């Protein structure tokens, strides 16, 4: 199994899409972080943004690294579906004919990839946040002190998002369909469902992940009462593993012709 995990890591490392996704994530989060910090310097109290230099403000900056979730979702999906899209599934299955093990390795690697994405993005927000704050007489320690409170949640949530993506990929092996439906659900569908039925909404991936990061701004949550963090983690894990298992016994099991 370790052999397969290493091979899957090599696969992700040797394709361009992974690096493009990481680069886009870094650019996007970096940009948002700059805009946020600069804007928050002279934001008025009562504007919804916590006071510059406060603990809540520091947590918000760090929490921006959680935007990597959707990128982790994409990496997880691509990890499985690109094999079908490019026909590498044939050589892969010749090397490892036990399909369940192949999918299991992909779940693990997508988890790792999500973790790495979150780690890199945490570094990015620190690299952006600390210098700009320092220029406005807020010491690095203000942000760094909050790191232990935010980082574990972000790392775990993003990692689980990667795994969830791999599960979706195993269930829907058509890459375009998988990416489109997962993104549409994550970005739009979940929000609407949550609005209509908050009691259901809290069990959806985005809000289960939010239970881990606690980063979702209060205002948009409204009445939503998030799950405890560990329940959120289990729910995320469940989505990934269950869809992967269902996938292994349905789509992945099919003929490769």
């Amino acid at each position, binding site marked *: 199994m370790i*052999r*397969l995990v*290493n*091979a899957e890591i*090599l*696969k992700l490392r*040797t*394709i*361009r*899409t992974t690096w493009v996704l990481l680069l886009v994530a870094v650019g996007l989060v970096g940009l948002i972080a700059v805009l946020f910090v600069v804007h928050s310097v002279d934001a008025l109290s009562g504007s919804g943004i916590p006071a510059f230099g406060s603990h809540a403000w520091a947590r918000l900056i760090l929490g921006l690294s959680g935007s990597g979730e959707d990128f982790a979702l994409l990496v997880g999906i691509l990890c499985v579906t*690109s094999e079908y899209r*490019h*026909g*590498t*599934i*044939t*050589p*892969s*299955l*010749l*090397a*490892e*004919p*036990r399909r369940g093990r192949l999918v299991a390795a992909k779940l693990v690697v997508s988890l790792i990839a999500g973790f790495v994405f979150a780690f890199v993005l945490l570094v990015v927000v620190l690299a952006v946040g600390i210098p700009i704050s320092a220029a406005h007489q807020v010491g690095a320690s203000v942000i760094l002190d909050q790191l232990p409170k935010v980082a574990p949640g972000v790392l775990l949530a993003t990692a689980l998002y990667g795994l969830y993506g791999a599960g979706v990929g195993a269930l829907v092996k058509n890459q375009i369909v998988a990416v489109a439906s997962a993104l549409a659900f994550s970005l739009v569908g979940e929000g609407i469902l949550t609005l209509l039925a908050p009691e259901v909404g809290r069990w959806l991936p985005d809000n289960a992940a939010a239970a881990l990061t606690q980063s979702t701004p209060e205002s948009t949550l409204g009445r939503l009462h998030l799950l405890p963090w560990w329940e959120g983690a289990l729910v995320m894990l469940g989505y990934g593993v269950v869809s992967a298992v269902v996938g292994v016994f349905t789509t992945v*099991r099919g*003929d*490769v*012709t």
Partner: protein
Amino acid sequence: MSENQDRTAGDMPTIEVRGLCKRFGHVVAVDGLSFTIVPGKITGFFGPNGSGKTTTLRMILGLVRPTSGITLVDGVPYAQLPHPKRAVGAVLETSGFYPSRSARDHLRVLCAMSGIDYSRVDAVLAMVGLAEVASRRAGGFSLGMRQRLELASALLGDPGALILDEPANGLDPQGIAWLRGFLRWYASQGRSVLVSSHLLTEGAQIVDDVVIVANGRLLARSTVAELTASLPTYVRIRTPEAERLANLLASAGIRVSYEAYDVVLAAGTNTSVVGPIIASHGLVVEQMSSVGGTLEDAFLALTGGGAWPAQVPGQWAPQPAQPGQWGPQPAQPGQWGPQGAQPGQWGPQGAQPGQWGPQGAQPGQPGQWGPGGGGTRADSDGGSQAGEWYQPR
């Protein structure tokens, strides 16, 4: 070659297919197929288009699930092999490459998956002649280069058996000559080679054994020698004294017919019988050649006239009168050498299977994709032309 046969006598079958069936919806692709492949030989897997060859090979490799029946490699289903890549190397048609991944990385990934040392990567790339383009993106490879990369990935595990589906697709004449020599060498080491083709001319030269299928069913399973020995052979003589020759032959007890006013066909005999008769009577002969007894004849006799998949409309209709013209049209690239443009043109030498491939007998250094021998086959029977060929029935 006799030495190889000694070595393999009594060996366990490496590949075994038992009662194999596969349906795709209501299409029956494979219908009760059973055969075994033994080490030390090259087995040709022949059949018309759509006869279920690819499907069978994919079932052996665990890629397609049989509707019923089993396939075994070294006595176990493929998925239960402890080291699949070391047991079987496969070249399949629809296998893909990640476009932005280099050829070397593609192979490295497969090494990593199979626990094979990375040092094998450059070794197999050199073998198939891709060493210089190893760092290029596989997405930019030509058809022939992809085929070579496929072959490289099959060889990674130095496997005990090779399964190749139309391996000559896209290869240049040098590549094909190399492949023939390589497969011969591979089998001579006591390993198994199963190679599919719908082009008889392509494979006939190097195979020892044949499995012939049509409509997913087994038509023949034997050695090439057995298969062709049972076929009638003909001698075709072009002479201005056709009538006189026909009478002479008939009085010698040989069945004769006319192919044209100046072309006599003598059935069930060979040139060593007809030649002396001609000489002793001082007949003028413009051309004489033997016809028949090739693997292709055997194949056509087995599959021709109704054995074609009738349920698939739009396929090439059987053309018994022109046996030399079946198969893909000449425009298709990557056929067996330059001669591939005129399938069926190859003459009666086929009666001695395995003796053709340029490096057939001793490929020397199989590690090189040398140009040596490419297309140097001596063709002593230049006379016949596609479509002109008399079909033994």
